[in-house]
């Protein structure tokens, strides 16, 4: 893949910053991965519980609705009477929150108030036992429903969150980390390139300097030899200063451009 990288200026500071980011991304990745694993474990447990609960549910509901049929057989229709006499709930559901690796899962808890409730006298004339039995059966069924509801909500939420977490893990692993690595590689290569240029420049300057020094030396030698050749030692000694002045004037050559 043609290296996707951040658009940063290749400087040493940016390199440090990007390296810190890489470190952060890696830590985040491992943390998220662990979270996802924890959630998945939890998810499996819930899944197993849901399966059990659903299987049990069928049976409990069947018993309950059948006990209602028994009541209908013996007592007749008591629905209205029971509904009217219900004043306070004997069965309450409390919603709680459970924290699973940072995910808040709602948990429902059933609270059954003790006592037979207001309609304990229902069916006094006939079928009271069946009424109470149907009541017990339905309390069990509702408790089951509450448990199942709690599991089911947790199931849906966990499913969603596991998906999100896995998406993040993969995003970090396959997109963010490679990009940061590419960026680092890019910065490094740019910096190396700069180093090499700098080195070359220094070399070039050095060689120019050497060349110039060699030429100056040569001119001095030349002048000295000419003076000796003229035999004008005295002039040569006395004309030492003008000769040096000339040399400086001669230095007005072109600038070296790299």
């Amino acid at each position, binding site marked *: 893949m043609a290296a996707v990288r951040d658009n940063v200026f290749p400087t040493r500071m940016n390199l440090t910053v990007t390296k810190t980011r890489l470190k952060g991304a890696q830590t985040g990745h491992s943390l998220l991965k662990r979270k996802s694993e924890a959630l998945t474990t939890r998810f499996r447990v819930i899944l197993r519980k849901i399966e059990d609960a659903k299987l049990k549910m069928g049976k409990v509901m*069947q*018993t309950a609705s059948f*006990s209602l*049929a028994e009541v209908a*057989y013996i007592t007749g229709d008591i629905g209205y009477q029971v509904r009217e006499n219900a004043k306070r709930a004997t069965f309450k559901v409390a919603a709680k929150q459970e924290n699973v690796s940072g995910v808040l899962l709602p948990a429902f808890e059933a609270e059954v108030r003790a006592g037979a409730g207001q309609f304990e006298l229902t069916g*006094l*004339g006939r*079928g009271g*036992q069946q009424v109470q039995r149907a009541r017990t*059966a339905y309390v069990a069924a509702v408790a089951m429903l509450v448990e199942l509801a709690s599991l089911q909500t947790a199931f849906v939420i966990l499913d969603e969150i596991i998906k999100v977490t896995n998406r993040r893990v993969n995003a970090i692993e396959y997109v963010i980390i490679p990009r940061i690595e590419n960026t680092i590689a890019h910065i490094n290569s740019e910096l190396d390139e700069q180093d090499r240029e700098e080195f070359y420049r220094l070399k070039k300057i050095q060689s120019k300097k050497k060349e110039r020094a060699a030429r100056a030396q040569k001119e001095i030698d030349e002048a000295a030899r000419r003076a000796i050749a003229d035999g004008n030692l005295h002039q040569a000694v006395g004309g030492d200063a003008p000769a040096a002045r000339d040399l400086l004037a001669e230095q007005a050559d072109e600038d070296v451009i790299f």
Partner: protein
Amino acid sequence: MNEIHFNVDAGYLEGVVRGYRDGLITSPQYLNLTQCETMDDLKLQLATTDYGSLLQNEPSPLSTSTLAARCTDALVAEFQYLQQNAAEPISRFLDYITYGYMIDNVILLITGTLHERDTHDLLEKCHPLGFFDSMPALCVATTVKELYHTVMVDSPLAGYFRECLSAEDLNELNMEIIRNTLYKAYLEDFDAYCRSLGDPTATIMSEILSFEADRRTVNITINSFGTELSKDDRARLYPRLGGMYPEAQTKLARVDDMDQVKAILEQYGEYRSMIVGVNLSMAGGDSGSSALSLEDRFFAKEVQLNKDSFEQQFHYGVFYSWLRLKEQEIRNVVWIAECISQHQKDKIANYTNIY
């Protein structure tokens, strides 16, 4: 000498009722019904009985509640036919039969009024047999006191109310206690009325009503275990008639659990056989047991008594018996339908066979 004049007034109706009796589902038909796998099969089987024409126009996924409603409609239609054709002594007897349903309806209305429900909705829930003329007027009353003063005093039940309750009680007492108090008064009154009718009716009806009273006594005892109903109140709800009055009732008023009830019932010949083999731990909530419950025994006994009343002629008991048998039949059919629709075939045989 009753027998000579009996047919003048009651001959036609007795004939009708005996004809109705022959329409009751017989045991081979019950066997066929229990063989059904789906509600449609059941409908098909019922088509050969008196219910056939009723269910013809019902849409195919037949629910048990529709079935029950249709059957009750049929029962009501037949009973109302009897009422419309009845002359003085029988019409009064038939009215007496409906008082039981009236009590239920009135309790329903009072409960609804206490909770400020719309009384028009309540009227739809009332049992059609328990309708009386002033009942729609109950809708006008908004408080219980008003209800009592304006409506109840005109109703046939006024006497029962006057005897046992005051308007203040209506607000305070548990509805279930009121219902049972009224029912007790009704049973006693009905029994007294039957006795006044003279011999064949009196003998037969007193037997049936005694049994009804005994059954209520036992049931009230069993069902009041572990409730707020005090023992004095319990004793006050026992009808003052029947084989258990007064001796067994005084004993039953003091018991605390099923074993003691059993010990008392064993002293009475007709009930000893009934409690043998009955699962007494029923109150513990063991719904898985397929053993016949005490209620089932009571039903069987009731059916037996009511069948016996058809063995004699020239008495009014047949009307009461037919209604009870028909009710039992509806219960049976609904039970079978429930078992089929809930796939509980192992309990399907728990109905009470009639013929």
